[in-house]
């Protein structure tokens, strides 16, 4: 699976709520951020958790979000960010 995004790209986390083993935190779904880096490609944990191969490997990105975007009541520095590693199939 080739990498669709590059550092600096604006992305949005898919707002989906399927069952299963999901590494994308609930609270970040639907939020927009910026790709900070490509971390590499790894077996898909959603498949690996179900005794399947996890192939093809999925690109994993570190995505940067503004804290004030994620938490409406955030009172820290407005420049504070949150970085989360998210698999490509959760980004659009």
């Amino acid at each position: 699976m080739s990498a669709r995004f590059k550092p600096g790209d604006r992305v949005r986390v898919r707002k989906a709520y399927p069952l299963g083993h999901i590494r994308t935190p609930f609270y970040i779904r639907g939020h927009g951020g910026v790709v900070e880096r490509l971390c590499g490609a790894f077996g898909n944990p959603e498949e690996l958790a179900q005794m399947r191969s996890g192939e093809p490997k999925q690109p994993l990105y570190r995505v940067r979000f503004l804290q004030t975007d994620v938490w409406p009541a955030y009172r820290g520095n407005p420049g504070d960010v949150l970085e989360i590693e998210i698999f490509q199939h959760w980004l659009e």
Partner: protein
Amino acid sequence: MTSELPPGRGHHDMGGLLAGRVEPVEHDYAEWERRVDALRLLLSGIKGGRTLMTVDELRKNIEALPPDAYERMSYYERWVTSITQTMIQRGVITTDELGRKMEQIEKRGRR
């Protein structure tokens, strides 16, 4: 609190929920906890053996714990429960074998 969560949010997926202050404490591992850790490592196959479970299965079966069990259990209690569940799912052991072994050990303990 689970009933107030939106559908699709697992009990374990609690990031961002109010939880009060986090108090870091030092923790000495008990012998059985070290064994559980070693067991998980060996079952993952990274020491050269067959892969009998992935870390993702470990996580999946921890996430499947009922919320009250998840809260009540310690870190390695969750691990050993999840490892056991995975071994049953993969057919490494059967529920019947497990039950009989537990019975046997319980009797041994009472003597």
